[in-house]
């Protein structure tokens, strides 16, 4: 038993290894994000001024949906093959292992979105400064989506129709993150500065990092009964 970090790191490593064995899955989640965001100009029209206005909202809603897509595979496979039970019975704190899984989910579902966001931002004719703020807001925001989403995934584990149910449960809880994240760029363009939005987003991140893994563990123990 050496330290608290080792089990956490092993939990992250296992999920990343599993994701690496399913490379196609990472890529499909990313392409889903790209396609959803690119649908908007096709639906709304190519006018640059309009696109620049809706760009933050479009990218954020794309990130929201991409994370939601990935949440299905957060606990369900482990529940099916019994590894989740073993994690619940581990001498290490179950919350720590769950936190590891959530971090791995963010690395697989959230990080690619953050990395590709600037490229998509160019499609929406965003200026350099707005691109930077948008990427920072996504960098702060996507972990929140994974954390809160994990609570929903745990609550709907093994429940019939959990796909639609998960989005109904979680999307209302995503709204503060969406408002602060997408609003950051808007505020900056309006000259109000984006510090307010980004600091609130960071606060949301700290609060959810602190509470979400514990609540997810409680929900998982209920699901495992």
């Amino acid at each position, binding site marked *: 038993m050496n330290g608290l970090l080792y089990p956490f790191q092993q939990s992250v490593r296992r999920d990343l290894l599993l994701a690496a064995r399913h490379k196609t899955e990472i890529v499909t989640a990313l392409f889903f994000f790209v396609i959803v965001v690119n649908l908007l100009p096709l639906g709304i029209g190519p006018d640059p001024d309009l696109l620049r206005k809706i760009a933050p909202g479009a990218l954020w809603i794309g990130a929201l949906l991409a994370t939601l897509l990935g949440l299905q595979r957060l606990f369900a496979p482990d529940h099916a093959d019994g590894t989740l039970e073993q994690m619940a019975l581990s001498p290490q704190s179950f919350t720590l292992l769950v936190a590891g899984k959530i971090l791995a989910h963010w690395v697989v579902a959230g990080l690619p979105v953050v990395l590709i966001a600037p490229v998509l931002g160019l499609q929406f004719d965003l200026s350099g400064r707005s691109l930077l703020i948008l990427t920072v807001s996504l960098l702060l925001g996507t972990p929140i989506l994974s954390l809160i989403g994990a609570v929903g995934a745990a609550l709907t584990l093994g429940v019939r129709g959990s796909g639609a*149910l998960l989005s109904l449960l979680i999307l209302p809880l995503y709204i503060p993150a969406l408002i602060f994240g997408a*609003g950051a760029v808007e505020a900056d363009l309006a000259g109000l500065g984006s510090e307010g939005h980004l600091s609130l987003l960071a606060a949301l991140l700290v609060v959810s990092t602190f509470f979400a893994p514990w609540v997810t563990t409680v929900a998982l123990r209920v699901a495992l*009964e």
Partner: protein
Amino acid sequence: MNHSLVNWFKFASPASFYPLVGRLIPFFATAAAILTIAGLWVGLVVAPTDAQQGEGYRIIFVHVPASWMSMFIYCVMAFWAALGLAFNTRLSGMMTSALAPTGALFAFLSLWTGALWGKPMWGAWWVWDARLTSQLILFFLYLGFIALQAAIDDPRRADKAGAILALVGVINVPIIYFSVQWWNTLHQGASVSMTKAPSMAHTMLLGMLLMALAFWAYTIAVALMRVRCIILERELTSGWVKKNAME
């Protein structure tokens, strides 16, 4: 099913709670009826016409109490949820599930009456006003809770999962209200706001208070009726149900 389950408070066990509730329901039901009639009478007949909004403002006599109730019920649900998780009494889970549909109804009525009030005043059926938007999100939270409980078959797991969602929700409600407020001031500069209630004459306040009490009594009566149904559905096998289900 031995009844030696040690419960924190005597009527926590559904068997002794069922007849007790049976006697309370008529009391709350009549109180709700009387208060509603009194409230509508004061609101629609006695209360004076408003200077700016004419007679249209009378919608607040149902709109504001409905909004209050939708938020109040969610907090009561969170209270029962916390109780259920802490003391593991079956009854708390049943109370939470019994309250949810009524809360959802009031959230919907608040949105419906808000739209009907917005149309004559601001010319649009839906106004992206901070309070109405938050009310809409609260309605989604209710739907999420009801959908989650409906999707889980095992009553014990449904209670616990619902309790967790209610507590997560009740923590998020103020955050959502704050973020929508923040969003509203950014985009509209708060020019259009429903929160500015018209100057409240004495009788108007009385009318709203009566309607709030009426909705409150109504909620208790309906929630108790529903909790009796839930008790019957869940305890169908145990002996006592056969005896006094008719009470």
